[in-house]
């Protein structure tokens, strides 16, 4: 009889109940909140549901020594986590993104690439502010990349620069990407005049298949020579795009853009969530991170719009750019392009800006990968 009671007591020590603290419970609630936001509000559900559930998994109280925690070597979660920790999941996602992205809007209007560059000012604005708020340069760099509005890039950079902040940075990035219509619209309206919103852009020219094939090859060589530390992301992005456009690797492109990216998305979300621990997440610094993330989105949007207005000073009448596509440099693809379309239609119901806005949108993907590369080079 005593043996049974002893065993039961031992068993109790193993359970989550015995090892539970209020921090664990709070994080589990936070995980449930993100799952709910993903399912009910449809905020980037493909990422927030895995991240949210991962937070729940990672914060179930476990008895150390059971070899299940994500930070215990050789546990299942730990092995899956290596893709994040060593930074190879994000490049694989970029492979899929490249394989599903159509860059022809950009190829036909190359000047719109510069909008993608301007929007990355959000990253550096947030970097400077983070430094002022007391973050170390490597942490500030990781926080700044939220403004790139690119989930894999944010996870990639923060895993290398500030892994303990990665959870907060990732949920911040995806949450604000979901909120892009809410954040960007007022800024776009504030910074543009009625006349500017009515600008009609020239219909872009047709892009030949040959151009679409040469684009990723030349694009990669150029960017990789300038920013070699961006090699993993840029290489995968352009490789995926080449698979799509070559015409002879359709199966590979379909797999990259389909099953492969789905597998990696599930694992990256889950393990990023599971790596988010209470002691880092529940702190005043997380609130600062969320605030800085929002500011970086605001700066990025404003920078994109204002840069278009600046470019228009040099454009002939009839060849001007509608500043409402400036926000699309914030590379939440295609959400910010959709915002351009919506705001454009409000001003003029027959002025469809969506395809024009896709050019800075995809340029922003390249821009944020370049920015991440350069930050990694300096701060890594």
């Amino acid at each position: 009889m005593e043996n049974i009671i002893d065993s039961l007591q031992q068993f109790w020590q193993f359970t989550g109940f015995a090892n539970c603290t209020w921090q664990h419970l709070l994080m589990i609630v936070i995980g449930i909140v993100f799952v709910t936001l993903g399912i009910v509000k449809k905020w980037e559900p493909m990422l927030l549901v895995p991240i949210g559930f991962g937070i729940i998994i990672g914060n179930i109280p476990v008895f150390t020594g059971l070899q299940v925690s994500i930070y215990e070597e050789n546990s299942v979660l730990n092995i899956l986590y290596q893709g994040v920790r060593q930074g190879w999941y994000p490049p694989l996602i970029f492979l899929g993104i490249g394989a599903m992205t159509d860059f022809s809007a950009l190829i036909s209007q190359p000047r719109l690439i510069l909008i993608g560059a301007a929007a990355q000012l959000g990253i550096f604005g947030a970097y400077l502010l983070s430094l002022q708020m007391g973050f170390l340069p490597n942490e500030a760099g990781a926080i700044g990349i939220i403004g790139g509005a690119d989930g894999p890039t944010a996870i990639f950079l923060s895993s290398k620069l500030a892994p303990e902040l990665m959870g907060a940075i990732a949920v911040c990035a995806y949450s604000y990407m979901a909120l892009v219509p809410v954040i960007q619209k007022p800024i776009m309206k504030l910074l543009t005049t009625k006349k500017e919103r009515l600008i009609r852009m020239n219909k872009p020219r047709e892009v030949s298949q040959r151009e679409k094939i040469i684009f990723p090859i030349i694009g990669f060589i150029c960017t990789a020579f300038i920013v070699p530390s961006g090699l993993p992301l840029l290489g995968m992005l352009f490789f995926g795009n080449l698979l799509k456009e070559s015409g002879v690797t359709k199966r590979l492109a379909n797999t990259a853009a389909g099953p492969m990216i789905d597998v990696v998305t599930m694992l990256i979300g889950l393990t990023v969530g599971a790596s988010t621990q209470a002691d880092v997440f529940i702190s005043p610094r997380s609130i600062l991170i969320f605030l800085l993330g929002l500011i970086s989105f605001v700066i990025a949007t404003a920078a994109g719009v204002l840069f278009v207005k600046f470019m228009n000073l040099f454009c002939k009448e009839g060849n001007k750019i509608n500043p409402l596509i400036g926000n699309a440099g914030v590379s939440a693809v295609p959400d910010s392009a959709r915002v351009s379309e919506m705001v454009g239609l409000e001003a003029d119901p027959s002025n469809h800006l969506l395809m024009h806005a896709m050019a800075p949108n995809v340029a922003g993907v390249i821009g944020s990968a370049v920015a991440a590369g350069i930050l990694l080079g300096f701060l890594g």
Partner: protein
Amino acid sequence: MMTFHLLTTGADKMAATDPNGLTLTTVCILVVFGCLLILYGVYSLLGAILGRQKADTVKPQENIAEKKDDGTSGVITIRTAGWSGNAQSTGATALSADAGTGSETKDSTESTRKGGTVTSPLPGMIIEVAVHAGDHVQRGQRIAVLEAMKMENDILSEFDGTVTAVYVTKGNTLKEGDRIASIE
């Protein structure tokens, strides 16, 4: 060289040498812009060598409308050849007359004067066709729904008239400028 110095510095040392982060920020911004400027140059060159003819330039007088504020919709009247209508005061989306000139294979602006050809303003997929040949339609009436970038766009008629032909069915993938329906 300053850049090289920064590159060999760890983050903690960086805090000492560049406490405000301004040097790093400036260099980074210059690099990002420089990189993308180079891409711009390369792709422009590529386009010049390999690309096809540019599409027609929008003429300035067609760009900005004389704003007819009828007070109800705030919708702008676009004055182009053959079309002087306002969109309905429901604020519905009207099809651009420009789209009638859309496809590069159509070579004249006459196609807007022929009137009645509703074309697609965006590439996308038809997810609904709301009219049949022989139906009488009014200006602003929905002809079809086009899905582009996961957004549903109503394609509306800018004419009163009778549908003489419908060129699409549900599931068709369209390019910008492809015909959807003719209305006489």
